[in-house]
Protein backbone atom coordinates (compact mmCIF):
# COMPACT_ATOMS: atom_id res chain seq x y z
CA UNK A 1 0.00 0.00 0.00
CA UNK A 2 1.57 3.25 -1.06
CA UNK A 3 -1.29 5.53 -0.11
CA UNK A 4 -0.56 5.16 3.58
CA UNK A 5 -2.81 4.33 6.45
CA UNK A 6 -4.61 7.68 6.51
CA UNK A 7 -6.44 6.87 3.34
CA UNK A 8 -6.80 3.19 4.08
CA UNK A 9 -9.30 3.34 6.92
CA UNK A 10 -11.73 5.55 5.07
CA UNK A 11 -11.29 3.41 1.96
CA UNK A 12 -12.41 0.36 3.91
CA UNK A 13 -15.45 2.25 5.16
CA UNK A 14 -16.29 3.12 1.55
CA UNK A 15 -15.85 -0.52 0.48
CA UNK A 16 -18.31 -1.71 3.12
CA UNK A 17 -20.79 0.96 2.00
CA UNK A 18 -20.47 -0.31 -1.60
CA UNK A 19 -21.22 -3.84 -0.44
CA UNK A 20 -24.20 -2.60 1.55
CA UNK A 21 -25.62 -0.38 -1.21
CA UNK A 22 -24.70 -2.24 -4.38
CA UNK A 23 -23.57 -5.77 -3.45
CA UNK A 24 -20.26 -4.71 -5.00
CA UNK A 25 -18.09 -7.81 -5.46
CA UNK A 26 -14.95 -5.84 -6.38
CA UNK A 27 -15.18 -3.90 -3.11
CA UNK A 28 -15.63 -7.19 -1.28
CA UNK A 29 -12.57 -8.68 -3.00
CA UNK A 30 -10.45 -5.69 -1.89
CA UNK A 31 -11.54 -6.13 1.73
CA UNK A 32 -11.08 -9.88 1.47
CA UNK A 33 -7.50 -9.66 0.21
CA UNK A 34 -6.54 -7.37 3.05
CA UNK A 35 -8.49 -8.77 5.99
CA UNK A 36 -9.08 -12.50 5.35
CA UNK A 37 -5.39 -13.50 5.80
CA UNK A 38 -5.28 -11.46 9.02
CA UNK A 39 -8.48 -13.01 10.35
CA UNK A 40 -7.05 -16.45 9.59
CA UNK A 41 -3.79 -15.63 11.36
CA UNK A 42 -5.74 -14.39 14.41
CA UNK A 43 -7.78 -17.62 14.51
CA UNK A 44 -4.70 -19.82 14.13
CA UNK A 45 -2.91 -17.99 16.92
CA UNK A 46 -6.01 -18.59 19.05
CA UNK A 47 -5.60 -22.33 18.66
CA UNK A 48 -7.49 -23.27 15.49
CA UNK A 49 -5.76 -25.64 13.04
CA UNK A 50 -5.35 -24.41 9.46
CA UNK A 51 -8.49 -26.03 8.05
CA UNK A 52 -10.74 -24.86 10.88
CA UNK A 53 -9.25 -21.36 10.67
CA UNK A 54 -9.95 -21.32 6.91
CA UNK A 55 -13.58 -22.40 7.49
CA UNK A 56 -14.10 -19.78 10.17
CA UNK A 57 -12.40 -17.06 8.10
CA UNK A 58 -14.84 -17.72 5.26
CA UNK A 59 -17.70 -17.52 7.78
CA UNK A 60 -16.39 -14.23 9.13
CA UNK A 61 -15.98 -12.68 5.67
CA UNK A 62 -19.41 -13.92 4.55
CA UNK A 63 -20.85 -12.33 7.71
CA UNK A 64 -19.21 -9.05 6.73
CA UNK A 65 -21.17 -9.17 3.44
CA UNK A 66 -24.44 -10.18 5.07
CA UNK A 67 -24.25 -7.65 7.90
CA UNK A 68 -22.72 -4.73 5.99
CA UNK A 69 -25.88 -2.70 6.79
CA UNK A 70 -25.12 -3.02 10.53
CA UNK A 71 -21.63 -1.49 10.29
CA UNK A 72 -21.54 1.94 11.94
CA UNK A 73 -18.35 3.86 10.99
CA UNK A 74 -19.01 6.41 13.73
CA UNK A 75 -18.52 3.63 16.30
CA UNK A 76 -15.84 1.36 14.80
CA UNK A 77 -13.21 1.16 12.09
CA UNK A 78 -13.50 -1.69 9.58
CA UNK A 79 -10.61 -3.46 11.34
CA UNK A 80 -12.32 -3.15 14.75
CA UNK A 81 -15.64 -4.42 13.40
CA UNK A 82 -14.07 -7.37 11.59
CA UNK A 83 -12.00 -8.16 14.68
CA UNK A 84 -15.16 -8.38 16.84
CA UNK A 85 -16.85 -10.67 14.28
CA UNK A 86 -13.75 -12.90 14.21
CA UNK A 87 -13.50 -12.91 18.00
CA UNK A 88 -17.14 -13.95 18.38
CA UNK A 89 -16.66 -16.71 15.80
CA UNK A 90 -13.61 -17.90 17.75
CA UNK A 91 -15.52 -18.13 21.04
CA UNK A 92 -18.37 -19.92 19.31
CA UNK A 93 -16.49 -22.37 17.10
CA UNK A 94 -13.14 -22.89 18.80
CA UNK A 95 -13.88 -22.42 22.47
CA UNK A 96 -17.49 -23.66 22.13
CA UNK A 97 -18.81 -21.20 24.66
CA UNK A 98 -21.42 -18.48 24.62
CA UNK A 99 -20.43 -14.84 24.84
CA UNK A 100 -22.57 -12.73 27.13
CA UNK A 101 -22.87 -9.25 25.56
CA UNK A 102 -23.57 -6.03 27.44
CA UNK A 103 -26.99 -4.46 27.26
CA UNK A 104 -27.37 -1.96 24.43
CA UNK A 105 -27.36 1.67 25.39
CA UNK A 106 -30.44 3.65 24.50
CA UNK A 107 -28.90 5.47 21.52
CA UNK A 108 -32.07 7.35 20.73
CA UNK A 109 -33.72 7.34 17.30
CA UNK A 110 -31.56 5.82 14.56
CA UNK A 111 -30.12 8.56 12.43
CA UNK A 112 -27.46 8.73 9.75
CA UNK A 113 -24.10 8.89 11.54
CA UNK A 114 -22.53 12.31 11.37
CA UNK A 115 -19.63 12.66 8.89
CA UNK A 116 -17.48 14.49 11.45
CA UNK A 117 -18.01 11.68 13.97
CA UNK A 118 -17.03 9.11 11.36
CA UNK A 119 -13.88 10.99 10.42
CA UNK A 120 -12.87 11.50 14.07
CA UNK A 121 -13.39 7.84 14.95
CA UNK A 122 -11.54 6.56 11.87
CA UNK A 123 -8.61 8.90 12.51
CA UNK A 124 -8.44 7.88 16.15
CA UNK A 125 -8.27 4.22 15.14
CA UNK A 126 -5.42 4.98 12.74
CA UNK A 127 -3.64 6.89 15.43
CA UNK A 128 -3.88 3.88 17.75
CA UNK A 129 -2.53 1.57 15.03
CA UNK A 130 0.49 3.85 14.65
CA UNK A 131 0.98 4.05 18.42
CA UNK A 132 0.98 0.24 18.61
CA UNK A 133 3.59 -0.12 15.90
CA UNK A 134 5.70 2.48 17.71
CA UNK A 135 5.74 0.47 20.97
CA UNK A 136 9.03 -1.12 22.01
CA UNK A 137 9.14 -4.70 20.70
CA UNK A 138 8.90 -6.33 24.13
CA UNK A 139 5.74 -4.47 25.04
CA UNK A 140 4.12 -4.96 21.64
CA UNK A 141 4.78 -8.69 21.69
CA UNK A 142 3.25 -9.04 25.16
CA UNK A 143 0.12 -7.16 24.15
CA UNK A 144 -0.12 -9.27 21.00
CA UNK A 145 0.22 -12.45 23.01
CA UNK A 146 -2.47 -11.36 25.43
CA UNK A 147 -4.80 -10.65 22.54
CA UNK A 148 -4.02 -13.37 20.06
CA UNK A 149 -2.14 -16.12 21.80
CA UNK A 150 -5.00 -17.11 24.08
CA UNK A 151 -2.40 -17.11 26.83
CA UNK A 152 -3.02 -16.17 30.41
CA UNK A 153 -0.41 -14.00 32.09
CA UNK A 154 0.93 -17.06 33.90
CA UNK A 155 1.19 -19.01 30.62
CA UNK A 156 3.13 -16.09 29.12
CA UNK A 157 5.34 -16.29 32.21
CA UNK A 158 5.99 -19.98 31.53
CA UNK A 159 6.76 -19.41 27.85
CA UNK A 160 9.01 -16.42 28.29
CA UNK A 161 10.56 -17.31 31.63
CA UNK A 162 9.73 -13.79 32.85
CA UNK A 163 8.27 -13.38 36.33
CA UNK A 164 4.53 -12.74 36.44
CA UNK A 165 5.02 -9.32 38.00
CA UNK A 166 7.29 -8.22 35.12
CA UNK A 167 4.71 -9.30 32.56
CA UNK A 168 1.93 -7.45 34.32
CA UNK A 169 4.00 -4.30 34.65
CA UNK A 170 5.13 -4.44 31.00
CA UNK A 171 1.53 -4.74 29.86
CA UNK A 172 0.59 -1.84 32.14
CA UNK A 173 3.49 0.19 30.74
CA UNK A 174 2.41 -0.53 27.18
CA UNK A 175 -1.18 0.53 27.94
CA UNK A 176 0.06 3.72 29.62
CA UNK A 177 2.17 4.53 26.58
CA UNK A 178 -0.78 3.97 24.26
CA UNK A 179 -3.07 6.15 26.42
CA UNK A 180 -0.43 8.84 26.38
CA UNK A 181 -0.07 8.58 22.60
CA UNK A 182 -3.83 8.97 22.22
CA UNK A 183 -4.00 12.26 24.14
Amino acid at each position, binding site marked *: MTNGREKENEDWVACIARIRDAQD*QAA*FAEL*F*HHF*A*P*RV*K*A*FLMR*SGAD*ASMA*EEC*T*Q*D*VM*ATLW*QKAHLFDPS*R*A*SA*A*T*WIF*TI*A*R*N*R*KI*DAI*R*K*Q*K*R*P*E*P*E*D*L*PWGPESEPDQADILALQQ*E*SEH*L*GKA*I*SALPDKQRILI*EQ*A*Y*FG*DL*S*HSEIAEQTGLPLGTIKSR*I*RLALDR*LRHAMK
Partner: protein
Amino acid sequence: MTDQIKHHLTDALLMAYSAGTLPEAFSLAVATHISMCDECRARLGAFDTMGGALMDECKGAELAADSLEATMARIKAGNPARITDAPARGKSKGMLPAPLRDYVGGDIDAVKWKNVGMGVKQAILPTARDASARLLYIPAGAAVPDHGHAGTELTLVLQGAFRDEMDHFGPGDIEVANEDLDHTPVADIGEDCICLAATDAPLKFKGLIPRIAQPFLRI
Protein backbone atom coordinates in the same frame (compact mmCIF):
# COMPACT_ATOMS: atom_id res chain seq x y z
CA MET B 1 -26.39 4.23 38.47
CA THR B 2 -23.27 4.85 36.49
CA ASP B 3 -22.00 7.88 38.47
CA GLN B 4 -22.05 6.08 41.83
CA ILE B 5 -19.76 3.27 40.69
CA LYS B 6 -16.36 3.41 42.40
CA HIS B 7 -14.97 -0.06 41.72
CA HIS B 8 -14.38 -0.82 38.06
CA LEU B 9 -13.05 -3.62 35.86
CA THR B 10 -9.27 -4.00 35.61
CA ASP B 11 -7.43 -3.49 32.32
CA ALA B 12 -6.54 -7.19 32.34
CA LEU B 13 -10.20 -8.23 32.53
CA LEU B 14 -11.33 -5.77 29.86
CA MET B 15 -8.51 -6.83 27.56
CA ALA B 16 -9.29 -10.52 28.01
CA TYR B 17 -13.02 -9.92 27.46
CA SER B 18 -12.22 -7.97 24.28
CA ALA B 19 -9.82 -10.70 23.11
CA GLY B 20 -12.40 -13.39 23.81
CA THR B 21 -10.19 -15.37 26.17
CA LEU B 22 -12.20 -15.17 29.43
CA PRO B 23 -14.17 -18.11 30.82
CA GLU B 24 -17.89 -17.67 30.14
CA ALA B 25 -18.72 -17.04 33.83
CA PHE B 26 -16.24 -14.12 33.95
CA SER B 27 -17.53 -12.76 30.64
CA LEU B 28 -21.00 -12.75 32.20
CA ALA B 29 -19.77 -10.65 35.14
CA VAL B 30 -17.89 -8.28 32.79
CA ALA B 31 -20.88 -7.88 30.42
CA THR B 32 -23.21 -7.27 33.38
CA HIS B 33 -20.91 -4.63 34.90
CA ILE B 34 -20.55 -2.89 31.51
CA SER B 35 -24.34 -2.84 31.21
CA MET B 36 -24.34 -0.74 34.40
CA CYS B 37 -21.17 1.33 33.83
CA ASP B 38 -20.61 3.78 30.96
CA GLU B 39 -16.96 4.32 31.91
CA CYS B 40 -16.05 0.64 31.47
CA ARG B 41 -18.17 0.50 28.30
CA ALA B 42 -16.00 3.26 26.83
CA ARG B 43 -12.80 1.54 28.00
CA LEU B 44 -13.98 -1.68 26.35
CA GLY B 45 -14.46 0.26 23.12
CA ALA B 46 -10.79 1.27 23.31
CA PHE B 47 -9.71 -2.34 23.84
CA ASP B 48 -11.81 -3.52 20.87
CA THR B 49 -10.14 -0.81 18.78
CA MET B 50 -6.78 -2.10 19.96
CA GLY B 51 -7.75 -5.65 18.97
CA GLY B 52 -8.68 -4.41 15.50
CA ALA B 53 -5.43 -2.47 15.19
CA LEU B 54 -3.33 -5.46 16.33
CA MET B 55 -5.11 -7.73 13.85
CA ASP B 56 -4.55 -5.13 11.12
CA GLU B 57 -0.83 -4.89 11.95
CA CYS B 58 -0.15 -8.61 12.00
CA LYS B 59 1.28 -10.72 9.22
CA GLY B 60 -1.55 -12.58 7.50
CA ALA B 61 -1.77 -16.35 7.13
CA GLU B 62 -1.87 -17.99 3.73
CA LEU B 63 -5.42 -18.61 2.52
CA ALA B 64 -6.71 -21.64 0.65
CA ALA B 65 -6.29 -21.16 -3.12
CA ASP B 66 -10.06 -20.92 -3.65
CA SER B 67 -10.80 -18.99 -0.48
CA LEU B 68 -12.48 -15.95 -2.06
CA GLU B 69 -14.49 -18.09 -4.49
CA ALA B 70 -15.60 -20.39 -1.68
CA THR B 71 -16.65 -17.38 0.39
CA MET B 72 -18.60 -15.90 -2.55
CA ALA B 73 -20.28 -19.29 -2.99
CA ARG B 74 -21.29 -19.23 0.67
CA ILE B 75 -22.71 -15.75 0.28
CA LYS B 76 -24.65 -16.74 -2.86
CA ALA B 77 -25.99 -19.87 -1.20
CA GLY B 78 -27.30 -17.48 1.44
CA ASN B 79 -26.12 -19.72 4.24
CA PRO B 80 -26.88 -17.65 7.28
CA ALA B 81 -23.65 -17.41 9.21
CA ARG B 82 -23.92 -19.04 12.59
CA ILE B 83 -22.11 -16.24 14.31
CA THR B 84 -23.83 -15.24 17.50
CA ASP B 85 -24.98 -11.68 17.54
CA ALA B 86 -25.68 -9.43 20.40
CA PRO B 87 -29.41 -10.03 20.74
CA ALA B 88 -31.36 -6.89 19.98
CA ARG B 89 -32.76 -5.68 23.25
CA GLY B 90 -33.47 -2.33 24.77
CA LYS B 91 -32.48 -0.91 28.08
CA SER B 92 -33.50 -3.28 30.81
CA LYS B 93 -36.84 -2.63 32.45
CA GLY B 94 -36.41 -5.15 35.23
CA MET B 95 -33.90 -5.22 38.05
CA LEU B 96 -31.36 -7.52 36.39
CA PRO B 97 -29.27 -6.22 33.46
CA ALA B 98 -30.00 -7.97 30.14
CA PRO B 99 -26.99 -10.36 30.02
CA LEU B 100 -27.98 -11.77 33.42
CA ARG B 101 -31.63 -12.09 32.44
CA ASP B 102 -30.50 -14.29 29.53
CA TYR B 103 -28.89 -16.70 32.01
CA VAL B 104 -31.66 -16.57 34.65
CA GLY B 105 -34.38 -16.93 32.02
CA GLY B 106 -36.19 -13.89 33.35
CA ASP B 107 -35.85 -11.12 35.90
CA ILE B 108 -35.08 -11.43 39.62
CA ASP B 109 -38.46 -13.09 40.38
CA ALA B 110 -37.48 -15.99 38.06
CA VAL B 111 -34.32 -16.87 40.05
CA LYS B 112 -34.47 -20.36 41.57
CA TRP B 113 -32.86 -19.67 44.95
CA LYS B 114 -31.47 -22.42 47.16
CA ASN B 115 -30.92 -21.81 50.85
CA VAL B 116 -27.34 -22.28 51.94
CA GLY B 117 -27.85 -21.44 55.61
CA MET B 118 -28.01 -18.36 57.85
CA GLY B 119 -30.52 -16.77 55.49
CA VAL B 120 -28.00 -16.70 52.62
CA LYS B 121 -29.37 -18.01 49.31
CA GLN B 122 -27.68 -18.74 46.02
CA ALA B 123 -28.54 -19.74 42.46
CA ILE B 124 -25.90 -21.29 40.21
CA LEU B 125 -26.12 -20.07 36.62
CA PRO B 126 -25.57 -22.32 33.60
CA THR B 127 -22.14 -21.48 32.16
CA ALA B 128 -19.24 -23.48 30.74
CA ARG B 129 -17.48 -25.38 33.50
CA ASP B 130 -14.04 -23.67 33.38
CA ALA B 131 -15.47 -21.17 35.89
CA SER B 132 -18.75 -20.83 37.73
CA ALA B 133 -21.21 -17.99 38.19
CA ARG B 134 -23.86 -17.69 40.84
CA LEU B 135 -26.25 -15.15 42.24
CA LEU B 136 -25.94 -14.59 45.97
CA TYR B 137 -28.66 -13.24 48.24
CA ILE B 138 -27.33 -11.94 51.54
CA PRO B 139 -29.90 -10.68 54.08
CA ALA B 140 -29.27 -7.15 55.38
CA GLY B 141 -26.55 -7.27 58.03
CA ALA B 142 -25.61 -10.92 57.40
CA ALA B 143 -22.11 -12.16 56.54
CA VAL B 144 -20.83 -14.64 53.97
CA PRO B 145 -18.40 -16.94 55.88
CA ASP B 146 -14.75 -15.86 55.95
CA HIS B 147 -13.16 -17.34 52.86
CA GLY B 148 -10.03 -17.22 50.76
CA HIS B 149 -9.73 -17.92 47.05
CA ALA B 150 -7.72 -20.45 45.10
CA GLY B 151 -8.15 -18.44 41.92
CA THR B 152 -9.87 -15.23 40.90
CA GLU B 153 -13.28 -14.19 42.16
CA LEU B 154 -15.37 -11.35 40.75
CA THR B 155 -18.22 -10.04 42.89
CA LEU B 156 -20.62 -7.55 41.31
CA VAL B 157 -23.26 -5.82 43.46
CA LEU B 158 -26.70 -5.74 41.84
CA GLN B 159 -28.70 -4.48 44.83
CA GLY B 160 -27.84 -3.28 48.34
CA ALA B 161 -24.20 -3.12 49.37
CA PHE B 162 -21.53 -5.04 51.25
CA ARG B 163 -18.37 -4.22 53.11
CA ASP B 164 -15.29 -6.38 53.57
CA GLU B 165 -11.73 -5.89 54.78
CA MET B 166 -10.90 -4.05 51.54
CA ASP B 167 -13.66 -1.51 51.05
CA HIS B 168 -17.35 -0.79 50.66
CA PHE B 169 -19.14 -1.98 47.52
CA GLY B 170 -22.45 -0.54 46.31
CA PRO B 171 -24.68 -1.15 43.28
CA GLY B 172 -22.64 -1.62 40.10
CA ASP B 173 -19.33 -1.94 41.98
CA ILE B 174 -17.21 -5.00 41.15
CA GLU B 175 -14.62 -6.49 43.47
CA VAL B 176 -11.76 -8.39 41.86
CA ALA B 177 -10.28 -10.79 44.44
CA ASN B 178 -7.40 -13.20 44.00
CA GLU B 179 -5.53 -15.73 46.10
CA ASP B 180 -4.06 -12.95 48.27
CA LEU B 181 -7.41 -11.93 49.71
CA ASP B 182 -9.15 -13.59 52.66
CA HIS B 183 -12.33 -11.69 53.32
CA THR B 184 -15.69 -11.74 55.06
CA PRO B 185 -18.21 -9.78 53.03
CA VAL B 186 -20.97 -8.35 55.25
CA ALA B 187 -24.18 -6.96 53.75
CA ASP B 188 -25.19 -3.41 54.75
CA ILE B 189 -27.97 -3.12 57.30
CA GLY B 190 -30.27 -1.04 55.13
CA GLU B 191 -31.18 -3.53 52.44
CA ASP B 192 -30.74 -7.18 51.45
CA CYS B 193 -27.74 -7.52 49.14
CA ILE B 194 -27.85 -9.34 45.80
CA CYS B 195 -24.55 -10.05 44.05
CA LEU B 196 -23.29 -11.88 41.01
CA ALA B 197 -20.16 -13.86 41.90
CA ALA B 198 -17.94 -15.59 39.35
CA THR B 199 -14.92 -17.70 40.24
CA ASP B 200 -12.51 -20.01 38.45
CA ALA B 201 -11.80 -22.12 41.55
CA PRO B 202 -13.78 -23.46 44.49
CA LEU B 203 -13.83 -21.05 47.42
CA LYS B 204 -11.89 -22.13 50.49
CA PHE B 205 -13.81 -21.60 53.71
CA LYS B 206 -11.82 -21.33 56.90
CA GLY B 207 -14.27 -22.60 59.51
CA LEU B 208 -14.99 -26.31 59.92
CA ILE B 209 -18.74 -26.22 59.27
CA PRO B 210 -18.51 -24.27 56.02
CA ARG B 211 -15.78 -26.64 54.87
CA ILE B 212 -18.07 -29.62 55.41
CA ALA B 213 -20.94 -27.84 53.72
CA GLN B 214 -18.82 -26.84 50.73
CA PRO B 215 -19.41 -29.92 48.53
CA PHE B 216 -23.17 -29.50 48.94
CA LEU B 217 -23.09 -25.81 48.16
CA ARG B 218 -20.95 -26.30 45.07
CA ILE B 219 -19.13 -23.07 45.75
